[in-house]
């Protein structure tokens, strides 16, 4: 007997940890890893609501699968961008990436 609120609290905690990672980390790869954590938190929420409110319809799982697809695409493109930036600037620290600024 696990109440729905427990899942929601865990998911909120995971989301906030990921948010902190995105805002506070200097390294771009670490920021991407934190983004993956937040997307996982969203998926926990979707699956928990599906299981507790509407387990007869597959729409909650379908949403979670689409989130997963977009997360995979985001990871691939993001890491490709980081590698490309690393080739040009020899750095992946987010503060040092200021080409668009000047």
């Amino acid at each position, binding site marked *: *007997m*696990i*109440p*729905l609120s*427990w*899942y*929601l*609290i865990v998911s*909120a*905690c*995971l*989301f*906030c*940890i*990921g*948010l*902190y990672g995105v*805002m*506070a*980390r*200097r*390294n771009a*790869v*670490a920021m*991407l*890893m*934190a983004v*993956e*954590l937040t997307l*996982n938190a969203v*998926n*926990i929420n979707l*699956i928990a609501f*599906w*299981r507790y409110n509407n*387990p007869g*319809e*597959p729409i909650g*799982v*379908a949403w*979670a*699968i*689409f989130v*997963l*697809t*977009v*997360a*995979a*695409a*985001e*990871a*691939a493109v993001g*890491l*490709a961008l980081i*590698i*490309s930036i*690393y080739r040009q600037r*020899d*750095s*992946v620290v987010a503060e040092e990436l200021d080409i668009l600024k000047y």
Partner: protein
Amino acid sequence: MQILFIIISAITLVSAVLVVSVRNLFHAALYMMLSFLGVAALYALLESGFMAATQLLVYIGAISILVIFAIMMTRRLMQTTESPFNSQWGMSGFVSASLFVLIGAIVLQVYPLDPAVAGGAPPAEELVTNTVNQLGVAFTSADQLVLPFELASVLLLVALVGSIIIARPDVEAEVEDES
């Protein structure tokens, strides 16, 4: 069940904290895999076997390996002398913590925390098999999810091609070097 849930959640959250705080990025990636494993176990607790398997395949199998490759290809990442946080880490912590308090307060307003009051998930017969069947039907029926499903496949293809083009070295410069 509750003890199992608490243990799994604790593993997930502690390794997530380590992901955002550990200095060595390679260790952070390994902790990230552990955190993903915890989330897969949470899916299994929610009787969503399909999502648990997909989580294992996509996140632990593919995304983690991609991240580890990126870490290994960018040399200076392994350096462990300088601080892993930028100057606004205090403010970020405050914002994240207050967001957590806000979400938690709203959740507790709507859903009670006490298991005796809230109760567990509604019983569902043969949920795992039924869900996979329904998903297969929904993803291929013209009046349901076939359009988003096809769009997702196009998105994956575009992301794949795009990341190859972004990440490969400058071809024109190489040709000029050779000539």
